[in-house]
């Protein structure tokens, strides 16, 4: 191998690690160039969405199931952290852990019977679960504060260092997002991940090859619920305020749309999907009255012409273009 080939081979071999490092590095320096709190607030929101969408993509993209109810777990995490730190005066970090554990338990209890369902029945069951949780948040005023929400959640802190402004929060929340990213990248390449991918491809075949499909589905469901719960806790501590509106079924569909737009079964796609859909309403401001049109239109356009999602879809388009040019060159 020549020197040049060696470098390319090295880059190719370590592409995932290098990509993660590059991403971490750019996130590390990002606040030095961008100190507008509003913009940072948006990128923090993207990070929170990334955590949920990564988990949801494991469930939708890798396990081939459907959930239109993950905002319920997100909300349970947020309200769990808010109530345990304010009402019960628990310290924030253990509370977050405790809540994540409880949400995992809820997901297990719901998941075991619900995951026997498939397709549209599963979609409805998860949607119904979300509506139930959302209604309880709205109606149980004494505990949740009802429609006006729950305020006064303290920021997270390590010792005396409180994550109380956008820049500090940027580092906290992106650290969580990157840990989740690495977890997912490693998980999908493990035996468990390959089993899941088989499950998404063809459930019967995967079962025949020795994948315990029911257990695998429930495990991924619980894992994704725990991720959503952690994202919810971060959300509550970041904004100091939670209200039922943030955890309605529309949030759930938004999360699922992020998965589909980013590309089902693409870990990096989740990052892009979360970023794209979170930013879309911001870009839409230019169109004022027409923003619903443009928002829906972009969604329809991407799904229609890049059904594999932005990352895989665009890469494939480029590959096809390159193959066509090569053939033209060969012919000439």
């Amino acid at each position: 191998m020549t020197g040049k080939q060696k470098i390319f081979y090295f880059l190719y071999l370590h592409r995932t690690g290098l990509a993660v490092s590059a991403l971490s590095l750019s996130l590390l320096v990002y606040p030095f160039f961008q100190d507008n709190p509003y913009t940072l607030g948006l990128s923090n929101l993207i990070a929170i969405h990334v955590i949920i969408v990564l988990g949801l993509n494991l469930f939708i993209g890798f396990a081939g199931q459907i959930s239109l109810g993950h905002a319920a777990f997100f909300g349970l995490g947020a309200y769990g952290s808010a109530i345990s730190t304010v009402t019960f005066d628990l310290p924030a970090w253990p509370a977050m852990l405790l809540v994540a554990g409880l949400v995992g338990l809820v997901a297990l209890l719901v998941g075991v019977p619900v995951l026997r369902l498939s397709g549209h029945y599963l979609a409805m069951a998860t949607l119904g679960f979300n509506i139930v949780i959302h209604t309880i948040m709205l109606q149980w005023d004494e505990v949740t504060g009802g429609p006006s929400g729950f305020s006064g959640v303290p920021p997270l802190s390590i010792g005396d260092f409180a994550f109380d402004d956008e820049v500090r929060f940027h580092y906290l929340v992106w650290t969580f997002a990157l840990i989740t990213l690495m977890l997912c990248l490693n998980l999908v390449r493990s035996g468990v991940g390959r089993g899941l991918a088989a499950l998404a491809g063809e459930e019967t075949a995967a079962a025949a090859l020795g994948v315990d499909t029911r257990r695998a589905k429930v495990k991924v469901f619980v894992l994704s619920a725990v991720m959503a719960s952690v994202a919810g806790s971060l959300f509550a501590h970041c904004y100091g305020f939670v209200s039922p509106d943030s955890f309605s079924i529309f949030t759930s569909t938004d999360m699922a749309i992020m998965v589909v737009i980013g590309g089902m079964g693409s870990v990096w796609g989740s990052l892009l999907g979360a970023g794209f859909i979170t930013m879309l309403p911001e870009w839409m401001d230019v169109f004022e009255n027409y923003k619903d049109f443009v928002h829906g239109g972009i969604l329809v356009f991407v799904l229609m012409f890049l059904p594999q999602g932005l990352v895989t879809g665009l890469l494939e388009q480029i590959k096809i273009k390159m193959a066509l040019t090569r053939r033209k060159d060969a012919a000439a």
Partner: protein
Amino acid sequence: MHTTQDLLQFIFAGLTSGAIYALIALGFSVVHNTMGIVNFVQVDFVSLGGMLMFSALLTAGLPMMPGLLLAVTGVALVAMLVERFGLRPSRSHHELVLIFLTVGISIILRGAMKLIWGKNRMALPPLTSDEPITILGAAVLPQALWIMLLTLIAISLLSWFFYKTPLGLSMRAVASNPTAAAVVGIPAGKIRLTSYAIAGALGGLAGVLVTPITTLNYDVGVLLGLKGFAAAILGGFGSFPGAVLGGIGLGLLESLSAGYLSSAYKDVVAFVVLLLVLFVRPKGLLGK
């Protein structure tokens, strides 16, 4: 104290909303049978029906019945446009992609309605007077009786269409086996277009009938539509008797739990029962 009169009152209320859910559920089922997807645009067909009725009555000044027919036909036409230009060009046949395509189209339609009719709540007059009639001691709005009557007529027309016409026969063929239907030369495009037209008409009819009781708004259909979807699932997705049974069941469940337990948690009761039914019968009450 609750009396039999109260019970009767709750049952009438349940049957009324149940009939509406049944209409919407039938719309979901028709599209599911021919395309295998959940058509979330159904939700907006309901709002659109009410909106078109509003314009037909108050802008064009038409009488009730022509207005109703015009509104229902209008929604059916919009539904056909949605299928032809919104779903058919899709490059993917992946269920999830198509479902979210309908979510995208639904956002566009809602945006259009917001632009045309504004965000304000509007009042649509009922088909006939709004003096309640007393039946066995329970007060019933004439509109509720219209809802039940027109739902019955719609269901009869639908069964006539599916069991007595050639087009209905081919639609049942596609529902039972799409590949075999394609092999014997049943035109898929026409069937899909028809199923959307029927879904649109059913949703539009539900919207025209229910909005005088609720109020009219560009997103009034969202919650109603989701209940319709729940009804379809409860009865067994794709089964027509199931859709009617699921709709009536959900309506009764809701009004009885609102009456006897708590009106704040009626949705919770309805959905918890739905989940419990699915745990016992994962394919719905009448699903195969």
